[in-house]
């Protein structure tokens, strides 16, 4: 029944096309890198790197080499480094084909909320607002419902937005949905999930 974290990441990896430059958010999106297979995908880290490699072997960490989550990483033969203004120039300029990121809420107009819960500690949006406004395609990977069992796919977001009408596709543990005119369209159901189950777990209008 339904997909686990790794299956969601695997399904998201199937979205990526050969030759793409891609930015992966933290959490499940980070796992997408494990499933790109033979495709030629270059990962961007918005703190100033194209061609992000895996975590270093113990003892080979370099304090000058971290990803946007501040974790130690490694470089590849193709790696290029640049400053933050250049990094967000390529993001804002639409050169990054796709961003895959997590969310607290998505609504049927493609609005995304993933940076702030009023009344709780606010840490900041980091690069999320720039990414969703700038990249070619925004794919959200998240659980279909929150820990109370309420739908995270809403008619209208209730939390402060990260971006308005920015989401193209949503991949959850229950399936894949696209943002289209008038609402969300079911693209596919997860293994063992019926369309009725997916509809029942979704508050947003399904067209």
């Amino acid at each position, binding site marked *: 029944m339904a997909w686990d974290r790794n299956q969601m990441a695997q399904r998201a990896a199937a979205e990526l096309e050969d030759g793409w430059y891609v930015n992966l958010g933290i959490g499940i999106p980070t796992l997408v890198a494990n499933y790109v297979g033979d495709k030629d995908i270059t990962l961007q880290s918005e*703190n100033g790197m194209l061609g992000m490699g895996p975590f270093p072997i113990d003892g080979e960490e370099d304090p000058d080499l971290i990803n946007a989550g501040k974790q130690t990483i490694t470089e590849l033969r193709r790696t290029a480094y640049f400053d933050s203004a250049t990094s967000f120039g390529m993001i*804002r*300029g639409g050169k990054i084909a796709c961003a895959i990121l997590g969310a607290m809420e998505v609504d049927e107009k493609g609005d995304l909320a993933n940076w702030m819960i009023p009344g709780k500690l606010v840490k900041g949006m980091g690069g999320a607002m720039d990414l969703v406004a*700038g990249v070619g395609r925004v794919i959200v990977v998240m659980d279909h419902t929150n820990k109370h069992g309420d739908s995270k796919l809403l008619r209208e977001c209730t939390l402060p937005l990260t971006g308005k009408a920015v989401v193209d596709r949503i991949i959850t543990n229950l399936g894949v949905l696209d943002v289209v005119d008038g609402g969300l369209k079911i693209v596919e159901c997860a293994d063992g999930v019926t369309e009725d189950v997916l509809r029942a777990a979704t508050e947003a209008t399904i067209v």
Partner: protein
Amino acid sequence: MQKIYPNAAAALDGLLTDGMFIAAGGFGLCGIPELLLGAIKDAGTKDLIFASNNAGVDDFGIGILLQTRQVKKMISSYVGENAEFMRQYLSGELELEFNPQGTLAERMRAGGCGIPGFYTKTGVGTVIADGKEHKDFVGPDGKSQTYIMEEGIYADLAIVKAWKADETGNLIFRKTARNFNPPAAMCGKVCVVEVEEIVPVGTFDPDHIHLPGIYVHRIIQGDHEKRIEQRTVREKS
């Protein structure tokens, strides 16, 4: 012109005033001007306004100036991992202006390039756009879209960390420690840089310089702790 100073305190001598606006390089704890921050702490300068992507951790980076209550306001994109910051912010002792990360970087770059404002799609339809000028433009895809105006940053002082400098201030950065350092350097009226090594003029291939010395006014060399915020490793395969 002599740009090399013996230490951080000497390099900041005569530059620090209460209430001044400082742009600082660094991302997380990577590539932060740790020696210059230490000297500002020792100098006791107060009511500082910092444009810096992050606010350090409690005992490293800008965090050390929060402990001594020297910071009045932060302009940042992400301020997690800092308990003292949160305490001061929630109690109203510290002002905070969130900027999207790319907007902050471009505000610094633009300010340094004499561009007082620019339009961006980032933040349209969010709280970031409240009170800002909105204007429609035809984008590169040929479609009309709404943009908001963001202002360039002009800082009184830029503090920056580079890997190497030559005696004229030409800089080379290392890996992802470059991050906000070049745009921060550009937007300062005065820019002070700390490096791991100062080399004689002529050492660098001119084609390999990341930031030309025109942006750099004072340089110090020193030993850096270079703390790692999140040590992540994999098994040897």
